């Protein structure tokens, strides 16, 4: 399977020109949205328009140049899509800043977010520069696993751990506060991938068949049980359903991909349902949350469902094409610039923009999974699949929560939400994906290429890239 692409005589082109063209479009989205916020809210183009646009353009084009040099065969769609999402997110955060200022609550979250983005893009470039081959990461399987667990435990430590909005997922380091879970996500994917590549045969081949499904052996259940406990621990001790669901789902999907055995999914799903039922029965807090999800409007008057109901009102108010920047009231929803940024977009830019954002997320996942498909090594495949699924699950959990499809949990909306840890981690994720896709799309070493070309006279391969 690894040789499929070359066997068919297909060689990927670099497509850096296409990336640049898409990036220009992305910049138009980002900078245009920023100008539209100024025009809509204040009636004039923002004073710092040139500086802001210049900074954004320089930053992203700089990153593009880095890609050109160090990952010339990388997927050309991922980076511009991410740039567009980040630019749109900045504009919406700026919009919420203006709304907060109008209420006398002066903040400049957009400026901070731009700083975080700068940091994120620098880390993105550094990752690409330093990590020339993603397989190197396989060496750090256990190190990253350990680091991930330490990071996940950090918020529980007294002194630096902090509880914000009921979830103990924050740590304070001097003036900074960050969510180590976001970084742990990346590390966990690497750890899982490394572990599974080594143990996939044992996990895949042993077991017995029950009702058309191959169930794994009892002793192989060890790692999945451990991961289940870790997820449960996050749920119980940190009160963070979103992260718990994300880590467990991520692990399950990677296990399934590594072993090619759907039995793992069955076992995992049963464990998840069991855990959820247990939590529902044992924890009154969970029961209320579940009921608020089913009947949000019944809890509005008591204030318990103020946030989700206001988000729904906002999105309904936005309708198909939205109210336009400045003509909605997105700031009615608490955390309109972070967890609930999608309801702000839905209100002022309408269903059209929500669909566009979802399409962009879908595109990221699709490009990442495509990278996994064409990747030549198992580790790379697993990392790409893991990152793609993490992305998909995170988007599903947060967007589904905001729109009421599933119970509300706290997770950031990748690249849109205000929040440094999440933004930086996601930029690194994209860097990893680009690195893997660069490896995957890069032509095979010349020896195999030449034999392929000679043995198939009827298919003349013309090299362009």
């Amino acid at each position, binding site marked *: *399977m690894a040789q499929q692409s070359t066997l068919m005589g297909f060689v990927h082109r670099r497509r850096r020109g296409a990336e640049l063209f898409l990036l220009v479009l992305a910049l138009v989205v980002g900078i245009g949205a920023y100008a539209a916020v100024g025009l809509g809210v204040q009636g004039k183009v923002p004073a710092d328009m040139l500086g802001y646009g210049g900074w954004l353009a320089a930053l992203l084009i700089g990153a593009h140049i880095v890609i050109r040099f160090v990952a010339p065969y990388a997927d050309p769609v991922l980076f511009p899509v991410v740039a567009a999402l980040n630019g749109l997110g900045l504009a919406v955060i700026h919009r919420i800043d203006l709304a907060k200022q*109008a209420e006398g609550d002066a903040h400049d979250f957009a400026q901070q977010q731009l700083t975080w983005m700068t940091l994120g893009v620098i880390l993105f470039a550094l990752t690409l520069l330093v990590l020339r081959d993603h397989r190197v990461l396989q060496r750090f399987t256990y190190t990253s696993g350990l680091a991930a667990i330490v990071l996940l435990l950090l918020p529980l430590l007294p002194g630096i751990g902090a509880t914000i909005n009921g979830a103990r997922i924050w740590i304070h380091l001097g003036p900074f506060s960050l969510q180590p879970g976001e970084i742990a996500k990346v590390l966990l994917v690497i750890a899982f991938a490394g572990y599974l590549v080594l143990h996939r045969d044992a996990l895949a081949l042993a077991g017995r068949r029950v009702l058309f499904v191959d169930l794994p052996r009892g002793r192989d259940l060890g790692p999945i049980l451990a991961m289940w406990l870790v997820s449960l621990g996050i749920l119980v001790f940190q009160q963070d359903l979103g992260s718990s669901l994300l880590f467990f789902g991520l692990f399950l*999907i990677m296990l*399934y*991909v*590594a072993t*090619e055995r*759907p039995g793992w999914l069955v076992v995992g799903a049963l464990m998840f349902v069991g855990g959820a039922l247990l939590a529902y029965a044992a924890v009154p807090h969970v029961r209320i949350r579940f009921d608020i999800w089913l009947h949000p*409007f019944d809890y*509005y*008057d008591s204030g318990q469902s103020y946030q989700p*109901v206001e988000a*729904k*009102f*906002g*999105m*309904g*108010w*936005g*309708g*198909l094409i939205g109210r336009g920047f400045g003509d*909605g*009231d997105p700031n*009615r929803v608490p955390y309109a610039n972070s967890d609930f940024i999608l309801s702000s977009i*839905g209100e002022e830019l*309408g*269903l059209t923009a*929500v*669909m566009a954002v*979802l399409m962009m*997320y*879908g595109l990221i*996942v*699709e490009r990442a*999974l495509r990278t*996994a*498909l064409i990747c030549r090594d*198992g580790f790379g*495949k*697993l990392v790409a*699949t893991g990152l*793609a*699924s993490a992305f*998909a*699950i995170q*988007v*599903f959990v947060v*967007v*589904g929560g905001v*729109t*009421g*499809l599933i119970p509300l949990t706290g997770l950031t909306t990748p690249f849109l939400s205000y929040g440094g840890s999440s933004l930086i981690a996601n930029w690194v994720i994209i860097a990893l994906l680009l690195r893997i896709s660069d490896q995957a799309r890069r032509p095979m070493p010349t020896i195999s290429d030449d034999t392929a070309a000679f043995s198939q006279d009827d298919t003349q391969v013309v090299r362009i890239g």
Partner: protein
Amino acid sequence: MNKPIRTVSIFCLLLFLALMINATYLQYWKAGALNDDARNRRVIVAAYSQERGAILVGRNPVAESVESDDKYKFQRTYPKPEEYAPITGYFSYFGATGTELTQNDVLSGQDDRLFVTNLVDLLSNDQAKGGNVALTIDPKAQAAAFEGLKALGSDVQGSVVAIQPTTGKILAMVSLPTYDPNVLASHDLSSVSKASARLNDDPTQPLLNRSIQTRLPPGSTFKVVTAAAAIEKGLYDASSQVPGGVTYQLPLTSGPTGEIDNEGRNCGANNSKIPFALAMENSCNTSFAQIAEKVGAEDMRKTAEGFGFNQHYFDDLTPQALSVFPEKLDDAQLGQTGFGQFDVSATPLQMAMVAAGLANDGSVMKPYLVDEEQSADLEVLHKTDPEELSRAVSATTANEVTKLMVATVDDGTAFPAAIPGIDVAGKTGTAQTGQTDRSPYAWFISFAPAEDPQVAVAVMIQNLDIPRDEVAGGQLGGPIAKAVMQAVIK
């Protein structure tokens, strides 16, 4: 590993499809229901920040939106706040009443008939404007009614309603005490809350539109209904002799509680006959109790319902209190209803309709307040057509009752409403409250000119801080009715 990766791709595709379908459901299918939720403040703020149409009396607005430079963009103002408050109602951040409420669709521009205008506004990027509502009110009659009622004293509680008999147009509608809707329309929301709480807690109920929301025993003004029922039944005409008496013992009763008198007015000796005109002129309770008994409960009710009792007929303001003629009556109660006591109760609008029905040859027109609904460009969307509510009595009966009422103004208790050179038909009323510490309710109904009526008026004074024995419908209400009629006729 590619097969499971493809499966995962399909799984992710399903996740995103679910999100997209749900977003579409929320923002497209369910959007209308979400916007209709009464708790949705976005809709309220948007409605509040909109340029509403004006409420017009003649060519002048009594409610209009003017631009303001705060976040709500437009300030609702009421140029003649207190005079028109019962009609316009108020439009505040927290809700609306009166015409502001009932005509909200037109005023806010949500009405389907304004769709094309709104579309043009949308395409030309203009802010959508609401349509205007033109009222039937005659500004002179309204001013005369307001000034007249207010002149009775600062603490007066009462109402004046004037109707054009041939159409049912409401020409004046005044209720006191009143309030300033500008205060409630203010953008200073905390002061609005305070003012609103103060008005709601006020024992004199300034927010109440007494014209349609207060029903009280109509007292002697109801005698015209009794007379109409009797004449319609063929018992009498205007020149007949009717039973009189200084006192009259109601059937089924004994002793002073069941004995009625005329408070000293000349109504003949007991068991004698007196002219019908005299009974009306001197407002003889003893006569009308006996007439009502002769008519019978069934026909009394039929006639009363013909004039609008026990019916909902007014849509332009809400809520309307139902004027009541009781369903079941024994003979003693029937006698009392003959002069508008017992459980008979009527709103001022109802008594104006009684006068208007008699003025319009027995045909009661459905009362209305909204004459025209217009688009923002003054294009007429809808003009209300006069509509008969019911035929209360025949034209002959109406003419006979009119004769009695003209006599009452010329020679009887209703003399304060007389206008030189014009025949005025009128009737006074002073209804017992049933409480010794409260002054009686004073009523007055009239219409003019008697031969070609242009206006019918009802005046009701619920409470006034003057000695009990000085309260008389004719003295208090007559001059006000006269002023209103003069304002219309001239």
